[in-house]
């Protein structure tokens, strides 16, 4: 079974007077991501990667086509209880402490009340924020908020982890922590979708990747296929795809 399936998905954002003008962000993308894989999603800015992630998380609705999570249509929100999502620039309520943030988001993910404290403690320990757990996060640096974002995404022990530019603002230790988490997911047969611009990370962690250019699927396969078994660097191969897409 696939963890994620996009079936001929199209997304057009309406705008202008009487919504007559449309900007197509994604056009006819079909993509499935099997359970247990670490999958990279790449593409230049405004390619449509974030739009795909938003449709996957039911944050926006496709104009045409369908999205499935764990074989069920994305409209079945209960499957979101099996998903963890870390967003690059998420603003948590500044009045909450790190511990309260995890309890709040964990509670909304359906984590039973009796497990909330224990899981929050363990995760704060894991991301290195245990000594700051009762501080309001308004005092946190960007890197600390990112670490908290990772802990938040893991609160419900998800089967699918979606990381959207996760290394933004993270220091070396934070990046190492993230890699460890992704490897753990892979070892335990769970799925990771990694949206990133950091090519070394994608190259190192992903089993497969998809490249989206101008709203269309430009490549899908193993990193080695993209680099022609190492004849090209990943950067050069991607540049080539991006330029072709731009034309």
């Amino acid at each position, binding site marked *: 079974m696939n963890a994620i399936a996009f079936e001929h998905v199209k997304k057009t954002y309406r705008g202008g007077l009487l919504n007559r003008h449309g900007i197509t962000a994604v056009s006819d993308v079909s993509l499935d991501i099997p359970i247990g894989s670490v999958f990279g999603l790449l593409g230049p800015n405004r390619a449509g990667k974030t739009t795909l992630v*938003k449709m996957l998380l*039911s*944050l926006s609705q496709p104009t045409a086509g369908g999205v499935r999570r764990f074989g069920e249509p994305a409209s079945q929100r*209960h499957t979101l*209880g099996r*998903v963890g999502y870390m967003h690059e620039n998420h603003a948590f*309520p500044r009045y909450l402490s790190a511990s309260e943030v995890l309890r709040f*988001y964990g509670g*909304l993910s359906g984590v039973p009340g009796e497990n909330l404290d224990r899981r929050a403690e363990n995760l704060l320990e894991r991301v290195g924020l245990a000594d700051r757990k009762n501080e309001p996060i308004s005092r946190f640096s960007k890197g600390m908020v990112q670490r908290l974002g990772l802990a938040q995404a893991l609160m419900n022990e998800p089967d699918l982890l979606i990381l959207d530019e996760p290394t933004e603002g993270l220091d070396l230790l934070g990046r190492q922590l993230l890699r460890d988490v992704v490897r753990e997911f892979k070892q335990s047969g769970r799925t990771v979708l990694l949206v990133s611009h950091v090519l070394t990370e994608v190259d190192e962690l992903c089993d497969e990747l998809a490249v989206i250019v101008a709203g269309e699927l430009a490549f899908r396969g193993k990193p080695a296929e993209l680099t022609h078994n190492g004849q090209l660097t990943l950067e050069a191969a991607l540049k080539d795809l991006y330029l072709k897409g731009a034309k």
Partner: protein
Amino acid sequence: MNIPTILLTVRWMVRDTFRQSVSTKLFWVTLGITLLCAAFCASVRVTGDPAPAQHDWEIPSMLPKNEAEKIGIEKVREEGVRVVTGEISFGFGAMTMPSARPREDTVRFLQVWLAGWIADTAGVLLALLWTAGFLPTFLEPQSVTVLLAKPSPRWSILLGKYLGVVGFVTLQATLFVAATWVALGFATGVWTSAYWLAVPLLVGNFAVFYSVSAFLAVWTRSTVASAFGTLIFWLLCWTMNYTHLRMSGVPVEGISASSSFLLDLGYWIMPKPLDLSGIFFDAMQAEALSTKPAELIEAQKAGNFHPEWAVVSCGAFAVGTLALASYEFGTLDY
């Protein structure tokens, strides 16, 4: 529909809203205002004769002492008119003035002003203004996307936030009424139980208009639009309500049938802040205290004041507006 998920979501959102109100200092500011009002009530001293027994057929015959002195107290008494020698003082006696009312009526007069006019008008408008920012900041894409990626239905998130704010106002209204009731009771020895009706009055009025604030917040995601839009809407509703009462009590000549129909339609669709206050005024017997709007009295006399339908239509308006806001929120692309 997964009921446990919905209940859980509403519970977490209510908790979060209370946490937000404490952290933004709003909780403490409103509590401070309540304590100030309670201190004011504690400083009130009222003297005066007890209220004379009244029957339906009896015309109250009493004059305040200062009025009676102008005629001559003995002469007034010979005419069978009672001379009321009441006084009311504020600030622990710092300011004293004569009162033409029996002691109980003077206290009720104060309570009607405190809850029926000051809290129900200034208080509700301030609460709408202060809480208007809760939803737009919460609905910013950067703040809400992770929350919307949870299994909870979107409408339950909005409902939880709405109930959280209404719950916060309910707590503050209860504290306000309780504190001023106890302070006035101890200071004057008068304990008017009908005063507690101010709690549902304040909460009901707020809840109806906060549904408009929630809709504007979802639609525009702007605190300014949400705050000022709601205040302007309140003013519009108050004017509509007042005009309808005025025309119900004293029919106006020359108004066309279509205008009359439109006025009726607007009155029945829109919230009725003045009608809701009317229920409180009646419970407090405010007509005898000259604190009830004359238009309301005239409309009542003409049989055109229906408090039960006012409550039902205001509730229906709030539910409808909230449903519209939920639909809008549910279909928004983030």
